[in-house]
């Protein structure tokens, strides 16, 4: 796990370095566009963690294995982190480009709702006593949370928004220059893997904490 972490961090730093130093500036936006190498991967990683959250939810309901609930917590935290990062970087990009830090645009609003849902998932997890019911409730909610992802994705085509329409996956091919696209796709893959790794590390530490809690409890009984 440690080795995977080192490899992922190295890969991520390499992508960021390439984004700053090697790819050309955008013809229309200039240098400010470079933030997409952080913004787009974090947004897609947030979607990926929501998908995995729902998958873990289904498995938890199916097998009643508490490990899947611990995984869900790790994924919800990692997903919230990535959603917050996507909102923050989008906001930083929005100021020079749109002239405002925030606007109630459909894409921004639905992404903000995803952050609220993930935060609410974590709050609900903390508000329920541990046991079978918490597993069922949180796993059910995980499936509901994923329902927001297609809405975020389609928001730019369903409504007239400030946010640009899809530029990577679209009919007629991507509108990005090949070298920019290659780096962006690398960034997406590495950031998504990093999100899973973060969830994995967090899940491991949560399992360890649970074990310790059980042992301490047993020692006091």
């Amino acid at each position, binding site marked *: 796990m440690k080795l995977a972490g080192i490899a992922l961090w190295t890969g991520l730093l390499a992508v960021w370095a390439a984004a700053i130093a090697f790819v050309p500036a955008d013809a229309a936006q200039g240098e400010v566009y470079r933030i997409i190498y952080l913004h787009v991967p974090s947004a897609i990683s947030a979607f990926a963690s929501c998908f995995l959250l729902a998958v873990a939810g289904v498995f938890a*309901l199916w097998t009643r294995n508490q490990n899947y609930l611990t995984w869900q917590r790790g994924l919800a935290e990692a997903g919230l982190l990535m959603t917050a990062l996507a909102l923050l970087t989008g906001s930083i990009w929005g100021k020079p480009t749109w002239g405002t830090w925030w606007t109630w645009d459909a894409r921004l609003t*639905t992404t903000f*709702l*995803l952050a*609220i*849902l993930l*935060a*609410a998932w974590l*709050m*609900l997890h903390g*508000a*329920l*006593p541990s*046991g*079978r*019911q918490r597993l*069922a*409730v949180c796993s*059910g*909610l995980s*499936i*509901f949370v994923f*329902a*927001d992802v297609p*809405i975020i994705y389609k928001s730019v085509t369903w409504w007239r928004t400030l946010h640009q329409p899809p530029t990577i996956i679209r009919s007629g091919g991507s509108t990005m220059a090949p070298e920019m696209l290659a780096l962006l796709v690398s960034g997406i893959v590495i950031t998504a893997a990093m999100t899973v790794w973060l969830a994995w590390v967090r899940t491991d530490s949560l399992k360890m904490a649970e074990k310790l809690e059980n042992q301490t409890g047993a020692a006091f009984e």
Partner: protein
Amino acid sequence: MMNNFLLIFRQTLRAEFADRERLLSPLLFALVILVMLAFTFGEPPAENRPAAFVAQVFLSLVLATQTALARAFDPEQQDRAFDLLRASPVDPAAIFMAKLLVVLLQGVSILVPATVVSALFCGLEVPGAALVKFSGLSLLTITGLGSLGVTLAAMTLKAHARTVLFPLLYFPLATPLLLAGTQGGIAIISPESVPVAGAMAGSWVVVSLAANTIFLTLGILLFGELVKSD
């Protein structure tokens, strides 16, 4: 299952009618919202009337149903009736459907006066055919809100901060239904203001149907698990 469903439905309806405050407060709340909006904004300009009408109906509907849904299981929790109900061999789906039907009735009892009052306040005359279509879309929205709300009410039943968690989960998850309701509603009520209004209304009905299917299916499938005791 049908007999169980009818039995629980009658019982739930009786429990709701036993407390008039539970029935009346969401309706009064919806009317207060409409009156406040009318006082604040007055009669909207002619071109904004359809949008204002649709927005007012759905705003009052979603806020009023939220207050009803947040305490959907309160009557059953008194005297441990809910514990006895879930310990009985009754199919949990029957409990869910009975509760949903009661919520739907409550929703309709809010929707009808809210539609009339909102049309009056906006000074809008809605043609009959458009009103029928709008009512259909509103019913679809209420069904989705009800399915989601009953499921979330069951989810937060044992949570410490139920009053905070319920709206925190309900409003973001209700977004697709509300968007479909309002956007589709505007396309139905004011087709001249929306390009390709018929197709737009149809696509929003599909979005609402998809959200309804997700919420209803998950509600029926999960309800048993959500209310099972440890």
